[in-house]
């Protein structure tokens, strides 16, 4: 499992980073989204991978790490998801505004000769 998830994180990161380096704002926003998947999975992975051990206790129960997966990274990922969503929205609107003002969807607000 670890190897698959690492590969997934790697590919998501690579795709995201590649898009971040591209000249079109839309590419960048897609890149940021892919990157945020990668980051979320990365954070998640920091709690180690467990199948069928969700950190949900029986009522009245006391949990320990031998039976349940680490809940902390999950809580962190939740926060990261929310913030990531907010930032995607923000970036989208900024890129729209930029496109509105400059007429182009180039990240620099003007067409460069070759990218």
């Amino acid at each position, binding site marked *: 499992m670890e190897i698959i998830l690492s590969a997934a994180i790697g590919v998501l990161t690579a795709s995201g980073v590649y898009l971040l380096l591209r000249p079109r704002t839309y590419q960048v926003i897609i890149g940021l989204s892919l990157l945020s998947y990668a980051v979320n999975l990365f954070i998640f992975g920091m709690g180690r991978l467990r*199948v*069928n051990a*969700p950190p*949900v206790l029986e009522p009245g129960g006391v949990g320990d790490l031998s039976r349940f997966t680490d809940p902390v990274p999950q809580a962190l990922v939740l926060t990261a998801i929310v913030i990531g969503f907010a930032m995607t929205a923000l970036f989208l609107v900024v890129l729209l505004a930029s496109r509105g003002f400059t007429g182009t969807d180039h990240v620099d607000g003007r067409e460069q000769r070759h990218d």
Partner: protein
Amino acid sequence: MMELSIIWSILIAQIMLGLAMAFAFYRMVRGPRAQDRILGLDTLYINAMLMLLTFGIRTANSLYFESALIVALIGFVSSIAFGKFLMRGEIIE
């Protein structure tokens, strides 16, 4: 013996669903038209939901259920957004 067959049958089911997702992916990436891609995504969603259900059976844990339920109830929203975008050029008029 029975344990093994249970494991295997569910695994086979999951692999089949995975393949179904792969085929859906083919449509998403190859199109040829936008509607094909969206249909592909919709199929991907449905198969993913089925995958969630099989996962629930496999682990006998019902915590997968909400995710499946959300796919079933809300998953169509993004598809109709796509559809409306195709049809009207904007999704909220």
